[in-house]
């Protein structure tokens, strides 16, 4: 069933019927609404602003890291070895690679393929879970070497990493919810927007992951 709509009231640049987005509950109707819509949906704007706020949060963390670095006679302080480079970079590359299935899930959802979109999200979710598990192991390993209540370096190091991991965890929960919703319940305009929003969230978290790892590794680079 295609969604009903209204005609624009007077001559405008826009031809055709204005869709009633939330009445689109079949894959075909959702795809039609997605094609007809010109502006980004409200939910997308909401997520864009939310991730802008989160990016500012990380900007603050990174700025704090370098502020404390510039204040210190030695960075890291004596007794803490400079971070190893290889494993964190590989882990970050693995996380950033999940951008691809997230992007593909959006394309599939826009075209009306709910099952395919859910599978792409599921694939990303699997890799992200492996990434997070690995990062938690690395985090605990670091805690054995030095503790955040010992120095400002350790405080900002662990706080920045913990903030990043918390955002990855949130993203994993969002992915799980989205995959279940569209995999089981099918597509609606609302859920298409949800897929787009969660993908946007991941693009930004992945970009921030690169900045966080470069910050974390800056004494060794």
């Amino acid at each position, binding site marked *: 069933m295609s969604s009903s709509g209204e005609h624009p009231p007077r001559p405008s640049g826009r031809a055709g019927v204005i869709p009633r987005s939330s009445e689109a509950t079949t894959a075909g109707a959702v795809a039609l609404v997605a094609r007809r819509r010109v502006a980004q949906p409200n939910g997308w704007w909401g997520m864009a602003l939310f991730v802008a*706020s989160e990016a500012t949060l990380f900007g*603050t963390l990174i700025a704090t890291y370098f502020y404390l670095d510039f204040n210190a006679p030695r960075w890291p302080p004596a007794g803490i070895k400079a971070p190893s480079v290889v494993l964190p970079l590989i882990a970050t590359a693995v996380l950033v690679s999940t951008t691809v299935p997230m992007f593909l899930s959006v394309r599939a959802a826009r075209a009306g393929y709910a099952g395919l979109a859910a599978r792409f999200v599921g694939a990303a979710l699997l890799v992200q879970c492996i990434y997070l598990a690995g990062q938690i192991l690395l985090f605990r390993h670091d805690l054995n070497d030095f503790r955040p209540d010992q120095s400002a370096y350790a*405080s900002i190091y662990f706080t920045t990493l913990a903030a990043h991991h918390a955002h990855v965890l949130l993203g994993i929960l969002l992915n799980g919810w989205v995959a279940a919703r569209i995999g089981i319940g099918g597509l609606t305009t609302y859920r298409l927007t949800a897929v787009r929003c969660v993908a946007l969230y991941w693009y930004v978290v992945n970009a921030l992951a690169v900045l966080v790892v470069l910050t974390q590794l800056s004494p060794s680079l």
Partner: protein
Amino acid sequence: MATLITPSAERHVELLEQVWAERQGVLGWLTTTDHKRIGILYFFTSLAFFAAGGVEALLIRTQLVGPNGHVLSPAAFDEMFTMHGITMIFLFVIPMTTGAFGNYLIPLMIGARDMAFPRMNAVSYWIFLGSGIFMYIGLVTGHAPNSGWFDYVPLASKQFDPGNNIDFYGYGLIFNGISSTAAAINFIVTIFKLRAPGMSLNRMPLFCYAFLAVSFSLVFALPALSMACVFLELDRQLGFHFYDVSNGGDPLLWQNLFWIFGHPEVYIIILPAFGIATSIIPTFVRRKMVAFPLVALAEIMVAFLGFGVWVHHMFAVGLATITTIYFAAASLIIVIPSAIQLFAWIATILTGTPIFKTPLLFIIGFILFFMIGGLSGVTVAAIPFDQQVEDSYYIVAHFHFVIFGAAVFPILGGMYYWFPKVTGRMYHEGVGKVSFYLTFTGTLVTFFPMHILGILGMPRRVYTYPAHMGWTFLNLLESIGSYVLASGLILIVVNLAVSLFRGPLAGNDPFEGDTLEWSTTSPPPPYNYPLIPTVSSPYAMWDKEDRELDNRRLARGEGLLARGHETPASTVQDAEWDEILHMPPHSAWPPVVGLTLTGMFLMLLLHHYEIAAGFLVAGGLALLAWHNKEYAG
């Protein structure tokens, strides 16, 4: 002219009345997602906090009425000035301007039927209420925050403030920040996407520009405050070392992070007031605003430049001039967009036909106070002068003129101006004018002498002073002024409260206003407009042809959007009609999320971290249930 409900239009309107019928009673208010009801909830809550902050101020002024005062102990005085600042900034002025005025008016001014995210709007309110109660639990239990509203370390560190006073503030600000961030995102998306078709960016009321500027500022400034508070609590609770020098930290880190938020915050306080002033002036001088594009850009530019001046709060800290010079330059230039607005308002009044009713009187008072506060601000943008008056009453004078004189006066004027629209009744004009003169005189007498006291050397935040300093007479004058001011404010509340029940009926448009909210009934129906208005300029009510076209359209039943709670969404720049959205009628989940977050922060304060995590999980589950009901895409 207001929209006419002719007999042929009535049956269309009846359909809308049925579709948009609201739940009554307490449950209706608890589960509301209607921006007007949420605005009213914000209004009364922030008014209650205003009263609390006002009592704190009167206690401060009573303590300082004479030398060697004994009304408050030093510790109690510290709590009073801290709570006064926290209450007035976070629990009164911002919720009142954004939550009350913004929520109520923005959808009406842009021709929409609700905000972009009505349920998130509701949760913003419940989180604000929770955070306010959370912080006041500290006061009631004798553990109020006590190291000033900017809470500098090391005074606020565990070593020097070991009780949980500071924790009420640190956690409370993170808590409150969630509400403001959500509200800001809501305003931006609403203003971007929900404008009536035809309301392109150059046809948007100036009030909306002010709120866009405020909202972007909130989104980008609050993270700095949240991180500063996270660092503080990590230092205090878990022994981290962000701010302690002996382990590589830096107290100036707090100052930088706090003021990166704190300066945009003061523009967040004043920009909605600018928006209110630019709404009231055209109506009461019967003239469109002079230099509309310049006023619009000035509002945005002040907010943008405001992110680059924060170190001017730290000129006396001992930073290198080669770093502070950037901030001195920006602090001087930021005067220009403020001045553009000031000159535009004055030019509009002078070239219009002023009708000196109460709302306009408050705006004229605002203009005068903004000039005084702005001028003292320019003086402290000069580093050498700032270093002389830093932490003296000169600074107290400056910020009270800009915060009270320039932010609160438009709020008071706006309360009078929109009272008829919200309640359907007219306030008493004579009493209104008396309340203005009392408030104006009280403000001047309370705050102007503070400039002199500051130059005479009286430091701020001192709980008393000796008799031989020569400060006695001016302090007495200020305290008398504060009682006069309080009486003016009480008279405003009495005027409006009595008029609510006994004022004459106001009609749709008692002042012949220029913006769309005056086209609908007073108070507006739940659906705001029977049809989506036709818009050709920022002064939609003064475009007679458009309003007549709307009456004809309504009679024909065009543009009703009555298949549920519908509102149009349009493109961002040119407001071309893009889709029709369906809005939620009500929801129980917002207050549930508010409750779980309050529980979480209380448990964090009491160091019950596992229970706090439990509340977080409960909140997450509530959000899942929330998103189970799908509305607009």
